[in-house]
């Protein structure tokens, strides 16, 4: 197809504003998916996506659309996730496109990720088609929201399309607008071939599948290709397009989006962000790649059963192919043996990865409480970076600890200003500014330590604002703070996997909470188990798990030995899931106890 008949666009929005549903209607209108294969949010094909009703991973699909001008266009659509943790997925998708459809929920108006994603699109010089969605809902205020888009984003309210992705109303106009307003790609088909890998996944038959956007030249099935950053050469197993499933083609030309089945088994040779060219007569310069996503949150992942270490590494490698933002390295813990320190873009990302490891790879994991990345200035002037409290050097060697602070923006109805203020300041946050978006909605800006943000801040925000507030954040700066390491001793032994770094003023309160929580989580053992929280040598809180005195079965009638044995077997299975720390059995949940320290029990 000549480039003037190609349109590459993505759909961006705040979470739940209806991107995937809008994509459904487009797939239907263009006949890409038959009525029989149609289901709600059809592009969300991962089990976890369907179950939770959220998009986790961007997906690309090609459609053939015959427009009002009678011409047929090749439309490459990329549906993106809306959750703040997956902004990196969005940024990569944007780079493969010339335009974006910005969706805003007519009952919610502009929210935090609406703006965040909009700014990203503008940074990439994309043409925007703004759409107000869900106009079928009684609470919809399409005109007001269109006006809001004009006021806040500067797009003419008259150009904002008002649609219902659910009923399909006005969706054809969106396709028309895409054809008319989004420019075609302007690649040079005669130039040396250059294609950007904007995503990948692993297929057990075809190896790493690289999702590519061809910028210049042509890729043919028979070409020998070269990955520019690693100089790896390969003969593709297959090339093709997503329609919506993988469909082989003979070539992909400048301006087109498709895939290359590389046959490669590991991510190392085929990195997202790399440029693919031809082995012979290749391009001299790669395309601008991506900045590697910067993980914000780190946690130790350990196999519950030590024998599963290799399986865990394997699974993490496979997931990395699917999720370019995932990073990990081996880590050892006295308490938990061999595992990995894994970096995530946020807590939701961590939760998703943990769940995928457990479900898709059948692993039983122990996860430690999440931590952020600290900069530690030593007395000798060196600066080291740590992502695990266990790695913090001895107090006497430390000159200063710096922690990451975030800049956050909260969109909310004005009646919750007080509650939000209280929440943020209770977590060491500092006020920056407040502006009214309209008569009833405000945009609050703060700075807050990331460590405070990752511990259920978002959930608390949602609950104090009855779900009405939305949040966006980005890195602000590292700041020196009075931070200390809070050690936890179980039966007098420090447990590295339970240590945490806390603000000095909070050490006492957190130490007490942690100890009382652990006291409840650690089952009674055959002997008394003291649990202590300590800063340096100073014990700031202690409690004892009393020795177990009684564990007998009640009367079972009539010699029901089978039932007794079943109960004993259940008990034994339960014990197997416990981790031994010295001679104390500790349940897996204990290692995540820190996460809930802010709950009021």
């Amino acid at each position, binding site marked *: 197809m000549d480039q003037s008949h190609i349109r590459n666009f993505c759909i961006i929005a705040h979470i739940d504003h209806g991107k995937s549903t809008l994509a459904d209607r487009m797939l239907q209108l263009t006949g890409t998916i038959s009525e029989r294969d149609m289901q709600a949010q059809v592009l969300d094909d991962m089990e976890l996506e369907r179950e939770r009703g959220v998009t986790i991973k961007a997906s690309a699909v090609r459609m053939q659309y015959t427009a009002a001008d009678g011409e047929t266009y090749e439309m490459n659509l990329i549906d993106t996730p809306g959750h703040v943790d997956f902004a990196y997925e969005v940024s990569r998708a944007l780079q493969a496109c010339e335009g974006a459809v910005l969706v805003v929920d007519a009952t919610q108006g502009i929210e935090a990720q609406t703006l965040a994603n909009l700014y990203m699109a503008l940074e990439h010089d994309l043409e925007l088609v703004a759409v107000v969605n869900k106009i079928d809902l009684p609470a919809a205020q399409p005109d007001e929201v269109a006006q809001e888009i004009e006021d806040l984003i500067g797009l003419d309210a008259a150009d904002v399309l008002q649609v219902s992705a659910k009923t399909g109303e006005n969706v054809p106009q969106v396709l028309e607008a895409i054809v008319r307003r989004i420019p075609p790609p302007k690649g040079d088909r005669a130039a040396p071939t250059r294609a950007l890998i904007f995503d990948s996944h692993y297929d057990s038959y075809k190896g790493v599948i690289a999702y590519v956007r061809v910028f210049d030249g042509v890729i043919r099935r028979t070409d020998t290709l070269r990955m520019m950053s690693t100089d790896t050469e390969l003969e593709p197993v297959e090339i093709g397009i997503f329609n919506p499933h993988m469909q082989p083609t003979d070539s992909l030309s400048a301006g087109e989006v498709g895939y290359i089945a590389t046959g490669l088994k590991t991510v190392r040779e085929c990195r997202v962000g790399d440029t693919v060219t031809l082995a012979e007569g290749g391009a001299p310069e790669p395309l601008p790649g991506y900045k590697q996503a910067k993980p914000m949150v780190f946690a130790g992942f350990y196999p519950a059963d030590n024998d599963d270490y290799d399986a865990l590494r394997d699974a993490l490698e496979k997931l990395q192919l699917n999720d370019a933002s995932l990073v990990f390295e081996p880590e050892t813990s006295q308490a938990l043996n061999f595992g990995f320190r894994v970096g995530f873009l946020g807590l939701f990302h961590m939760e998703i990865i943990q769940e995928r490891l457990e479900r898709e790879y059948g692993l039983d994991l122990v996860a430690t409480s999440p931590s952020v990345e600290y900069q530690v200035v030593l007395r000798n002037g060196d600066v080291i970076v740590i992502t695990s409290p266990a790695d913090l050097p001895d107090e006497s060697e430390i000159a200063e600890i710096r922690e990451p602070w975030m800049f956050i923006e909260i969109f909310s109805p004005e009646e919750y200003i007080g509650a939000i203020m209280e929440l943020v300041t209770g977590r060491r946050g500092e006020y920056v500014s407040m502006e009214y978006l309209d008569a009833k909605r405000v945009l609050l800006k703060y700075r807050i330590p990331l460590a405070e943000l990752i511990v259920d801040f978002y959930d608390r925000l949602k609950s104090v604002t009855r779900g009405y507030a939305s949040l966006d954040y980005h890195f602000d700066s590292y700041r020196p703070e009075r931070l200390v390491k809070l050690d936890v001793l179980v039966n007098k032994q420090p447990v590295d996997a339970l240590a945490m770094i806390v603000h000095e003023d909070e050490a006492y309160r957190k130490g007490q909470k942690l100890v009382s929580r652990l006291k409840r989580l650690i089952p009674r053992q055959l002997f008394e188990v003291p649990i202590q929280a300590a800063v340096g040598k100073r014990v700031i809180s202690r409690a004892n798990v009393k020795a177990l005195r*009684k564990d007998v079965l*009640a009367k079972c009638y009539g*010699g*029901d030995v089978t039932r007794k*044995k079943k109960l*004993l077997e259940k*008990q*034994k299975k339960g014990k197997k899931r416990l981790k031994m720390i010295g001679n104390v059995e500790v349940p897996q949940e204990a290692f995540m106890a820190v996460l809930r320290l802010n709950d009021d029990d």
Partner: protein
Amino acid sequence: MGNGEAFFGTLYGNIPAELALYIHIPFCEARCSYCAFNTYVGQRARVPAYVRALQAEMRLAAEALPRVPVSSVYFGGGTPSLLAVDELGALLETCADAFVLIPDVEITLEANPERLSPRDFRAWRALGFNRVSLGMQSAREDELRLFRRTHTLADVRAAVEAARAAGIPSLNLDLIYGVPRQTPAAWRESVQAALALAPDHLSLYSLGVEEKTLLHKQIARGRVPPPDPDLAADMYELAEELLARAGYRHYEISNWARDGHACRHNVHVWRNRPYLGLGAGAHGNVAGARYANLRRPSDYIARVAAVAAGDARSTLLAAPAAEEIAALTPADVYAETVILGLRLTEEGIAPCAFAARFGRDLWTLYGAQLRRLLAWGLLEQSDKGRLRLTPRGRLLANRVFVEFV
């Protein structure tokens, strides 16, 4: 003695050729709040058919087994005392007819101390019952009410008197401790009230809150506090002391008896010897398998009738009404022998007896576990290496047993 192999095969090892019978009567007047047993209320009309099914099951089982002497028959429930005298008589008659009962066979009847007359005891005695177990549960009205028991302490006293007058030679009382809101003083009161009745045997059960019971619901809803396990441990220790002083021997984790009054039937089971379970939901262990019968009386009755008519067949012929059958491996039998045997607090498990029975060395099989348990102070070794639960081990018996599963 010692020729059991000929009867039961090598799986059970070298044991006396004796069988025990357990007969389940799954009917009660009302359901107690803590009860998760296989029992049903309001089914009086079904009893005659049920009795006939039991008789048929006995005959079918007896046909499938060698004619082994039966040393004990235990009527448990449910409430066996709900059966009319002639129904009990019919069952015992079939029993004596189908099986070989040894001359001094122990025949136990579980009875609820409500609406029992001296005439009942006299009739039972005449039928051959020589042991009666009374569900006293508590001496206190508040606890009996919490349990939804339908009798009073006065009923228990009257029943004991009647049993003695009728010449019942061995009498047991059941008590429950670790009850919500129960204080050690209240527990002492119940124990002393039971001792005042001079029973030959006492069974003290720790209250278990089982799912699907009324008590479980009440606790889940916060209407009744959950039992306190530490307090229950205190009560157990208190009872050990009181009963020792009164001359009872603590022969099993939950059972005490005067000399010569240990329950032969239960000791047989704890020694892991074969027994037949008859009736709905009854469990048995014969012919190298553990089995459980169909639980619902109607299903059970229909199944027995079908087997008797030749329309159905169980894979375990000795258990015509079995719903689940699990064949035992030698390893199962060794483990079960240890687990059950350690319940016998005086007898425990003697390596020499174990070797004589199975031709296997206990320490070779379970050295690691035994060493651990000795080190933890849950087991102790006495004369000639006999292994027994320590006083602490009795309260932590599950921690001991779990090592062997």
